[in-house]
């Protein structure tokens, strides 16, 4: 290691100057990249399934068109993806109909998948100039997850089964679950669940770790999380059908579809092709088996003849 320079007044401003310069260069590079008409930018949120789906979209477009695909994955959440899409920083990203309905459009919850899809499709078209393509085939809903040994010992199958134990339990939830209208408050009321203390609020990525380490007894994960099985945890059935549908759909800018009409057909070839099991398996291959993302997606496309 070279001589460590102390953080002096000048040191800080030099650092931020360097940071600004780096930002400027990145922006410049991105701008140059977009100058070529044949580039399309695929985005995703910051969790495995989204990155897998973005890679799938990207490979699909690369395989069936002459366009160059840029991957702008791991954007921090629905908000960032939505803003990036509407402002044209990205051309498409995978979203879930329920999330679009409740978090973006801020509509009241609705249980009929077809109604949710139609509403989201017409609103996105009118308000954002964004096309909602056909659902990919799986539903990624919230899932209440408990440790496997608890599930076995207490015979827990569905969410209703935990109500008697909840007063002695601690819960761990993500910010999204706490804030959303289809989240904690409504869920606790629908199932009559009362926990010992206010739920611990954690980042999504830390929930399963906290559950595994017995810091909490139940967490709100997602039905397609690959690690549920690998960590010997159990996702409880939503027996009162509280959660609205969260069908995965590609969202694409209308301007992009107009400039490259082949993108629609390419992506709609994926409609109905991904089952919940398929998705869980791919998530697990990446998260649990630490396999290369591009290989996992390539294998899936081969297997489905895409």
């Amino acid at each position: 290691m070279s001589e460590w320079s102390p953080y002096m007044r000048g040191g800080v401003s030099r650092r931020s100057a360097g940071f600004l310069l780096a930002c400027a260069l990145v922006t410049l590079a991105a701008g140059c990249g977009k100058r070529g008409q044949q580039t399309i930018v695929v985005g995703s949120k910051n969790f495995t399934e989204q990155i897998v789906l973005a890679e799938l979209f990207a490979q699909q477009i690369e395989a069936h068109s002459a366009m160059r695909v840029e991957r702008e994955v791991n954007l921090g959440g629905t908000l960032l993806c939505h803003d990036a899409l509407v402002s044209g920083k990205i051309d498409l990203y995978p979203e879930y109909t329920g999330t679009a309905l409740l978090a973006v459009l801020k509509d009241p919850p609705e249980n009929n998948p077809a109604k949710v899809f139609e509403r989201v499709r017409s609103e996105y078209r009118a308000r954002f100039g964004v096309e909602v393509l056909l659902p990919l085939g799986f539903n990624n809903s919230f899932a209440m997850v408990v440790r496997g040994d608890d599930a076995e010992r207490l015979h827990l199958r569905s969410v209703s089964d935990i109500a008697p134990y909840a007063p002695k339990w601690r819960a761990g939830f993500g910010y999204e679950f706490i804030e959303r209208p289809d989240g904690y408050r409504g869920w606790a009321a629908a199932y009559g669940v009362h926990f010992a203390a206010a739920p611990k609020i954690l980042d999504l990525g830390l929930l399963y770790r906290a559950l595994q380490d017995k810091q909490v007894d139940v967490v709100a994960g997602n039905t397609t999380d690959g690690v549920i099985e690998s960590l010997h945890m159990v996702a409880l059935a939503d027996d009162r059908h509280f959660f609205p549908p969260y069908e995965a759909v590609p969202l694409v800018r209308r301007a992009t579809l107009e400039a490259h009409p082949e993108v629609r057909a390419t992506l709609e070839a994926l409609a109905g092709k991904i089952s919940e099991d398929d998705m869980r398996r791919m998530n697990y291959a990446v998260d649990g088996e630490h396999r290369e993302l591009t290989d996992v997606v390539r294998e899936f496309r081969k297997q489905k003849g895409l």
Partner: protein
Amino acid sequence: MTWYDFLVQNRAEVWARSVEHIGLVAASMAIALAIGLPLGIAIVGRAALRRWVIGTANVVQTIPSLALFGFLIPVPWIGGVGASTAIVALALYALLPILSNTSTGIAEVDPAVVEAARGMGMTPGQVLWHVQLPLAAPVLLAGIRVATVLCIGITTIAAAIGAGGLGVFIFRGVAMVNNSVILAGAIPAAFLAIAADVALGLFERSIARR
């Protein structure tokens, strides 16, 4: 609703979160100082040890905070879910500027002055306390100032492990797709950082004048 309206309407919670935020910063800075100052002094003149200690502090800086929280959850006493994990992680992040400036500041004191002090019959402890530390004070304080501002900024991540602070608004806003809520956390945090920077800057100057 603009961020300002949100801030005014939720001023009680913004205030409580700010107090929580300052508490987290104070606790982690106290730990970072308690470790960083003695360790920074101890590594002066021990090149191998210094490389090792500063190198470790460097590596800690590169660990993403969520990963660090993840490592800390299973650790008994200091880990778990809540403020203690956040404080440990933040203290680790604040350590580098304190360590490096303390050791550099003391190492850069003119050897002739140190020699003269020894010649006057001062013990090593007296040399440190009466000569080296006062002369190194500006560099030391600059390190503490940087560490404090840095700490106020990264304390927003404490909300990821249920420790509260102004980061709660940022995480909540991201989850709700609501910029006003994000800004209601980010702007007070930025204000705190600027205020701390100015206050410590003034303190630095008053020390230098003496």
